[in-house]
């Protein structure tokens, strides 16, 4: 190796090291603060490559993304002095990183603790003037906006930019829940009874109607049947009268004979006869 290269290599290497020490990256999702011997000098950096003096400057980076405060369940009193259990979360990001560093030490966890306190206080007062019904069905959006407006200035003092505050759960405590369940059960029982009695009512109507129709149909048929029978009787009477009227005297004779026969045809009928009747004219003596 020549002496030139022997000098060049370490010199190049030390240049590299020096260069490395005098630049820093700010990533796309980060914010950075430049310190000069512990004193904050610059905190407004775009992402990318930046220069600093080696050794005397050092850099801290902070997460610039949207961060979450997932607040623990908390009991609040509503305007009816009822307890509700509330889960909420807040979305925030570091606004003024310098302020953020000085007030909460640039620590996400610390920031969340502070934020949690002020949020709970604000919520307590907001919940206190609203009924459960308002909280659950009506005022969610309005509550969100009120809380945001109320808390944003406070959060800004910590260098925090509040993006969103949302209520997740608003639940009744266990003992109230059970009474809600009882009410729901009672309500369902009412509905069930109503259904069943309606069913019975309709069924009764339908079957009664059917019975009525049955009777009407049969009665009408009987009426028509009598009519038809009458027609038969009338026609046959007419036929008889026409025919027998030709010779009433003979008819009477002929029909009487038939009647005698049919009325005395059984063997147990006993006739007591006199021998001097017309029939026995030739019975006792031949004349």
């Amino acid at each position, binding site marked *: 190796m020549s002496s030139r290269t022997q000098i060049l290599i370490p010199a190049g290497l030390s240049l590299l090291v020096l260069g490395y020490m005098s630049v820093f990256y700010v990533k796309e999702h980060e914010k950075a603060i430049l310190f000069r011997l512990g004193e904050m000098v610059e905190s407004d950096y775009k992402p990318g490559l930046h220069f600093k003096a080696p050794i005397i400057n050092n850099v801290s980076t902070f997460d610039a993304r949207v961060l979450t405060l997932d607040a623990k369940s908390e009991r609040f009193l509503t305007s009816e002095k009822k307890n509700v259990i509330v889960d909420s979360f807040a979305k925030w990001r570091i606004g003024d990183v310098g302020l953020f560093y000085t007030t909460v030490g640039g620590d996400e966890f610390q920031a969340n603790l502070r934020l949690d306190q002020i949020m709970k206080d604000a919520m307590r007062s907001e919940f206190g003037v609203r009924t459960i019904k308002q909280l659950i069905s009506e005022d969610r959006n309005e509550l969100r906006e009120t809380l945001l407006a109320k808390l944003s200035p406070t959060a800004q003092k910590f260098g925090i930019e509040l993006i969103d505050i949302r*209520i997740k759960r608003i639940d009744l405590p266990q003992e109230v829940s059970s009474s809600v*369940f009882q009410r*729901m059960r009672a309500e369902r*029982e009412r509905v069930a009874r109503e259904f069943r009695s309606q069913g019975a009512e309709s069924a009764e109507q339908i079957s009664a109607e059917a019975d009525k129709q049955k009777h009407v149909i049969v009665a009408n048929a009987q009426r028509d*049947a009598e009519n038809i*029978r009458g027609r038969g009787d009338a*026609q046959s009477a007419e036929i008889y009268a026409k025919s027998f009227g030709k010779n009433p005297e*003979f008819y009477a004779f002929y029909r009487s004979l038939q009647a005698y026969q049919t009325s005395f045809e059984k063997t147990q009928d006993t006739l007591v006869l006199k021998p001097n009747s017309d029939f026995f004219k030739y019975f006792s003596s031949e004349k």
Partner: protein
Amino acid sequence: MSSEKHNTSKQTPQPDWRLEIDKYWKQVSEKTGDFFNDHKSMFSAGKVASAVGGTLAVVWLASGFYIVDQGNRGVVTRFGAYSETTMPGPNWHIPVPFENVAIVNVEQQRFIEVGYIDSSRINKSSLIPQESLMLTADENIIAVRLAVQYQINNARDYLFNVKNNENTLKQLTESVERAVIGRNSMDFVLTEGRSQIVAEIKEQIQAGMDEYKTGISIASVNLQDAQPPEEVQGAFEDAIRAREDKQRLINEAEAYANEVIPKARGAASRIIQEAEAYEAEKIAKAKGETERFDQLLVEYEKSPAITRKRLYLEAKEKLYSSTNKVMLEADQTNPMLYMPMPQTFQQHGSSPAASNDAEPTVEPHNADKNGMRKTSGNELRPSRSKQ
């Protein structure tokens, strides 16, 4: 170093690994020294340096090649700052440490579950009461299970804007579903309102995700299940059963009606038919009898006296041949006659001549031989056949 700890903790001292490496290094350097010494003519130090440097440079540049698979995007950052998003295919970036690339799948359907955990291993989803129970507008409590399907539609936003996108989506979903369901009545949620509610939830989640610039788009929101909580399941099921009972009662009544009315029509038709049969029978009989009479009358009018006599005698003959007879050759003294009448009446258990089931109408000869006799009601039965 862990191996050092190893050594100190072990009772039996082992050969120190640093000595081993030294030994090995010596061997290597000797060998390469030999190599360089042998080919001194070929290699000057500068040439070696530039060759090595060139090779390193080529390797370094080549390390900038990367392939983005179908359905993915590459997000390139220069010195940590976003520079571009690359499409599927082969790409090149200025190698580390100048540029870096992160690959994000933008087509994969991902999903989160709210209110339950689906464990595919036991193929059963278990409710998480804390997440699933919520209040409705009419202060009822229902259990809701929701699945949200989403995909990343902006890789840059996804990577840089929000810390923990999935958690954010879950929190937002919980908040939105409660807000939407809290505005509606239980019945609406459980029955006809489902699709409307799902649409509303989806829209609001998307709005929130856009507000945070998460780079996520919601593909669909599935309301897996919305039902009353376990504590009141029984009552709800009974109400559903009651609804079915109602239907069942109505159906049964209709079945009864469908049975009774046709039967009544059948009976009516029978009544009419019987009446028509009666009519036809009456007329036919009248015609028959009168025709017989008419024909006889014709003969009678030709010779009345003898026909009359003949008919009379035949009738008497027939009459007397079939009955008991008592002939009394009595004169005017008219002695007492004793007849055991009751005995004769009791013989067949039939009533005497004045029977009480006589026809109300005057029936012609042999009316009841094979005809029908009307009795009380509409029932018709064959009359007793004669012995």
